[in-house]
């Protein structure tokens, strides 16, 4: 009986042999392989971005040997990461962090001081993440720098609603907003809607294969009692990233909302991070948002009205995107 029991244990332990038990070695090739494998098994946009992972592996691993220095290894690993062209993904070696700049190649000119001085009439109210005021008697202005404090957004809604019928348009500026908590983006989007409506879907990676995804999970607005009663103009530029792209994606195609400015920087997902054998940390996107029309926002949300600020006009105090929003 005991021998049978031990035999059973032996069998079960043998069954439990697992390739994850063997760790990658702390060599340049081992570190690179661990990073490549983590990206291959977890990054959610490999197919969307037509990334040939085998080719990337061959290209970059051939640049390394076991005698490569830490600097050389970091450079090669950084190049692999930057090829993902994803502003959420990063590589951190403890001293510096490498991240793809989604605003690279775009002017994305924006100056909040210029708006405060040249466009806002009367009092400028500033909270930690929100700057607000009136452009004229019928137009209110809110700039949100990050999606970090939902109470500030509620306060701004209350302030404008208390002004009653004088304000009929809100300009909601998310230019140079690098993102934050997606839940606050959802709450903010819900503030522009009268009732609960379908806003889009979230899909998560759920396996090692490039197309292993969960079923889409529907997202609805929150049906908030406290909401903006006015029409909205959402101002975007290429530096409107992550949660800003979520907001733009959720508000696209709404009758009372127009998006004005540049295509957003994208960033439609959350990241998970992973320790490499030498202690460096790499992070990749593992889920993504589709808007209500089923469109990816990873490469940015296109505006309804495309406007770009010019250096010349900004130099003389003119914000063309804001002017378009005032006139619309």
């Amino acid at each position: 009986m005991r021998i049978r029991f031990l035999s059973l244990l032996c069998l079960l332990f043998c069954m439990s042999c697992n390739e994850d038990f063997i760790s990658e070695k702390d060599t340049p090739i081992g570190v690179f392989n661990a990073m490549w494998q983590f990206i291959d098994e977890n990054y959610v946009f490999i197919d969307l971005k037509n990334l040939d992972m085998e080719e990337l592996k061959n290209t970059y691993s051939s640049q390394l040997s076991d005698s490569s220095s830490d600097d050389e290894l970091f450079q090669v690993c950084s190049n692999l990461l930057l090829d993902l062209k994803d502003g959420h993904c990063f590589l951190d070696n403890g001293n510096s962090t490498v991240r793809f700049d989604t605003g690279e190649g775009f002017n994305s000119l924006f100056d909040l001081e210029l708006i405060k001085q040249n466009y806002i009439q009367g009092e400028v109210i500033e909270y930690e993440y929100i700057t607000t005021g009136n452009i004229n008697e019928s137009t209110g202005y809110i700039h949100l720098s990050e999606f970090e404090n939902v109470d500030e957004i509620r306060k701004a809604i209350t302030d404008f609603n208390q002004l009653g019928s004088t304000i009929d348009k809100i300009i909601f500026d998310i230019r140079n907003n690098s993102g934050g908590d997606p839940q606050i983006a959802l709450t903010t989007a819900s503030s522009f809607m009268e009732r609960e409506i379908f806003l889009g879907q979230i899909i998560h990676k759920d396996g090692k294969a490039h197309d292993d995804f969960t079923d889409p999970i529907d997202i609805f607005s929150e049906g908030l009692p406290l909401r903006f009663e006015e029409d909205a103009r959402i101002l975007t530029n290429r530096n409107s990233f992550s949660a800003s792209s979520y907001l733009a994606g959720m508000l696209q195609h709404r009758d009372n909302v127009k998006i004005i400015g540049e295509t957003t920087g994208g960033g439609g997902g959350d990241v998970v991070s992973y320790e490499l054998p030498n202690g460096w940390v790499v992070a990749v996107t593992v889920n993504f948002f589709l808007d209500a029309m089923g469109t990816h926002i990873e490469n940015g949300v296109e505006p309804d009205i495309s406007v770009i600020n010019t250096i010349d006009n900004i130099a003389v105090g003119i914000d063309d995107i804001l002017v378009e929003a005032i006139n619309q």
Partner: protein
Amino acid sequence: MYLPYMKNIFLTTFFSIFIGTAIAQNTNSLWIGLSPTVQTTKETRYTSTFRSGLGYVGTLGYSSVNEKRTIFFETEFTSTTLGSSNISSTRNLQPNIQFSYLFQKAEKVNFGPDLQIGSLLQFRNGITSSNNKISYLIWNSLGLSMNKSFLLGSSERPIPIILTASLPLLSYLIRPSYSFPFTDRFLEQENYNFDLDNLSSSIIKGGKIRTLNSFIHLKFGVEAYRFKKNLGGSLKYQFNYLSYLKQKSLFQFTHQLIFTFIINNRK
């Protein structure tokens, strides 16, 4: 690297079953202990390598022994910090409750069912912009436990020794989903928002039944006692092996040297 560990596991299991002879009968005992612990963990949800570190373990237990059966109840809390890098260190918190009801099957050999509720909660330091700052494995396990006791040393002042081992056979396990800190159940909600609505219920309901081939939690201990009247102390070496082998796997080895203060109440 794999085989030496497997060898240890087999040897400790073997010894726990076949070696030993005697310990005091008809005794209720209450004990409390605090000691250092050495732990090595590989959580593939966030690391590619084994990380080791030091910590402490605290125990509080009760047992009731007579000629026919042993009732054993112990709560245990382990805390360790693994890794030294400011971007890759992890704090492990590991509470565990164990209840065993052991029948005497042969002279000084006890064998019976074992119930354990425990968890390994892992908190990563230094990572701010990541969705997997925490990881966890929560288990509710039904298994087998055994102990064997004998006397060591001279016949004038023998040292009672007890060998213990336990192994879950069937477990209800709760793990995060493949790429998200919450369970698959949380993701299966029809209406999803980014907040933590229904998180607690989704975690409780989000477990899966696993058997020994995907979840192993072997505990092995060797304990030596000294008593003066009804007060005593013990020194116990405990080895725990934990592994979860589905999708993103988890491995852990823990060595503990536990100093325990014991109050006995002989019947």
